[in-house]
């Protein structure tokens, strides 16, 4: 019973460790904005801690670089289970515009498994809080893949040899041979 209580309390108090593995610090500033009084993240019980051993959630920013990949993996391994990883910003979600640079390995998910993605460049503090709310189950996520198909087969095909007529009226007369 105590175990159930502890697991339910996991969502009420998330302690956050902030790991920037090579980003431009734009997303860092937005994360720090989310902890200021205007967009207060502490009302959800979120606290910024200084050591990965104390933390439940790792906020990753910046793409995974060749120089910091090992450090990032070690910080992730140091966190006690159960743990979540949020990838904040376009660089952490997919590599950003630097995805094929010489020093970038790629998105953060190539090194550590990511639980939630918060894209944006940088994401607004409200977007970060929205992502946290999605993770806590307070709101539903809003994006879904969109697919659009414009065509129905068979497609009528017009060959210039089969178009008769001149002036205004052009008639399509299908000849027997294709």
């Amino acid at each position: 019973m105590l175990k159930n209580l502890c697991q339910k309390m996991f969502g009420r108090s998330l302690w956050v460790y902030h790991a920037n593995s090579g980003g431009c610090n734009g997303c860092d500033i937005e994360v720090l904005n989310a902890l200021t009084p205007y967009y207060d993240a502490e009302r959800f019980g979120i606290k910024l801690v200084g050591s990965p051993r104390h933390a439940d959630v790792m906020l990753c920013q910046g793409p995974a670089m060749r120089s910091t990949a090992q450090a990032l993996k070690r910080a992730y391994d140091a966190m006690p289970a159960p743990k979540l990883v949020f990838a904040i910003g376009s660089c952490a979600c997919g590599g950003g515009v630097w995805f094929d640079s010489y020093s970038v390995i790629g998105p953060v998910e190539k090194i550590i498994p990511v639980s939630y993605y918060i894209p944006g460049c940088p994401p607004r503090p409200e977007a970060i809080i929205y992502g946290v709310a999605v993770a806590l189950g307070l709101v539903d996520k809003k994006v879904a893949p969109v697919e659009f198909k414009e065509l129905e087969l068979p497609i009528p095909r017009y060959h210039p040899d089969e178009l008769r007529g001149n002036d205004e009226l052009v008639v399509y007369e299908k000849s027997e041979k294709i």
Partner: protein
Amino acid sequence: MHVIWTSLAVLANIATVLIVAPLAQGILRKITARIQSRQGPPVLQPYFDLLKLLGKEDIESGEYPLMQRFAAYLSLSIALCIACFVPMGFAVPLGSAGDVILLIYLLTLSGICTLLAGLAAGSTYSLLGISREMMTMIALEPLFAIALVVGALHTNSLALDAVLGGSAYKGVGIPLSGVLMLAVMLLSFQAFVQRIPFDISEAETELMEGPLMEYSGPKLALFKYAQMAKLILYSTLFVALFVPWGSTFPAPIGWLLFWMKVFVLVLLVTLVAATHARYRIDQAIRLFAGLICVSFVALVLATYGF
């Protein structure tokens, strides 16, 4: 019969500390948030924090895992031991089992737990944290010891019930030493409970949380609980020593009045913590050195009966 009453009183004290300590921390965080013009966490947040920490995985890390375990168990048990020697509205539960000297030793031992924790981790950050904590402790523990000794000098006894009954003012004529010690304790109270102007060693993002760096899960819950309990314990000791008025009322009113005084002190701690910045270690040591000089003057005055 006596044994049953004593054990009931001990259990009541321990239960009170265990229940009230996270509540005081929650109120502290909420008031800090309101002073910073934001909506803070709910008041029951520290209970959620502790429960969540109990549910995490326990990683034994650092250089000496055995000492890590020992330090964690020691911290909360020392805090609960001190709770048995502190009057919380009623008489001291284990008054016949110890005296003021034991109380001074227990208070110092609770500071040593942090040093052991940092040693167990063995990394640079934690060693730096415990060196700062050692310097702070050397300058700080004598202040409370001198306050208790002043009370003991006034009442000519080392028994806890006598000393912790507002004994600082019981001298001859104007209680000079009592007032001096009151001022000294008010100025250094924040350091005893490890709050903002003086939380140099722990919970500090400069040092990656210092001595507690390698703790995770249940052991961290024990340490955090001990820290929360220290706030309540030091507040009750302060109120028992220096604010005794109103403790002579009959049972429910006297108890309520005592706890109101404790919460006023917690409020004062919060207000000071929310409006100040952290001191550097040398600034803090200079302040404590000055306060030790003043408290020696108070000690000398107390020997002469003032």
